[in-house]
């Protein structure tokens, strides 16, 4: 039953997605592309682009998109609830503990400990996108120019994505 599978897949992603944002991408790829084979690699790249172009957390956007594609609005709803539920439940538990013991010192230690793994996960995500998303010299040029713009100017990443997409239309049409 697809709705049940959707819920479980995204609950698993929600439960394991430490580090926020892009760090969830390798997990999503693992579940949706490799394990369940709901999306091909190129569909995964579209998923990442759409999730990044739309305001809001990437993992939630990705859940909504995958759910909608597989099972319409109901699927979108179930997948979104699935990805949100574990962290919401954990927050309510931790908040209760925080009152009693000085939990924030431990939480700070955990955050610092997790960071090297988040860096490794981000590099994995970049490796995956580079392998499947850079098809020719134009791809390399767009990537390099985008990177330079992102590092030297204070621009909204969404703006860079839209310009790169428009460039893509000019090149590939």
């Amino acid at each position, binding site marked *: 039953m697809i709705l049940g599978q959707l819920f479980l897949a995204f609950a698993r992603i929600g439960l394991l997605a430490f580090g926020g944002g892009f760090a969830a991408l390798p997990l999503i790829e693992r579940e949706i592309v490799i394990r369940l084979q709901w999306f091909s690699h190129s569909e995964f790249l579209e998923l990442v682009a759409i999730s990044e172009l739309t305001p809001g957390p990437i993992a939630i956007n990705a859940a909504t998109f995958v759910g909608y594609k597989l099972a319409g609005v109901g699927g979108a709803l179930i997948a979104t609830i699935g990805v949100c539920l574990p962290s919401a439940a954990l927050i309510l538990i931790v908040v209760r503990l925080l009152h009693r013991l000085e939990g924030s010192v431990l939480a700070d230690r955990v955050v610092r400990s997790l960071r*090297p793994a988040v860096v490794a996960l981000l590099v994995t995500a970049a490796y995956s996108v580079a392998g499947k998303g850079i098809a020719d010299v134009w791809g390399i040029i767009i990537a390099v120019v985008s990177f330079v713009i992102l590092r030297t100017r204070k621009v909204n990443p969404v703006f860079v994505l839209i310009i790169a997409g428009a460039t893509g239309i000019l090149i590939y049409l």
Partner: protein
Amino acid sequence: MLPLIRQEVVNKRKWITTRDFIDGVVVSQSIPGAIALNMATFTGNRIAGNAGAIVAGVGTALPSFISIVIISVFFLRFREVSVVQGFFRGATPAILALLISATVDIGREALEGYTEIIIAIGLLALLLFLHMHPALAILIAAVLGLLVRRRR
């Protein structure tokens, strides 16, 4: 997103104190899931208990939910159109640039010393070459990090 949340709930509405806000940020980052959503749940809970947490969580997730559903309707209909294909072929390399840029930013903060650098490189090797599960990388980092920090 965090500066926006701070402006709204601490400065403007004075729902929680700055100290509560900082606690919330630390907790939100140490728990899995989107940080903005965790922060919303945390703040909602501080103001109005479990019901507040649920309402704030739904409030945070709803706008992106609606936007994505609307975008999906159009995208899935026009996916094969060559303009749309061209757009995504052009946008993907920019996503790579975004990812590398985010890695540089987080890396600068995360790799505080040699220990962290070694852990990151080791985990990366395991992820890329042995296709280790991402969750396992997180778990290993947590255990190693806590052990190292206990000794310091």
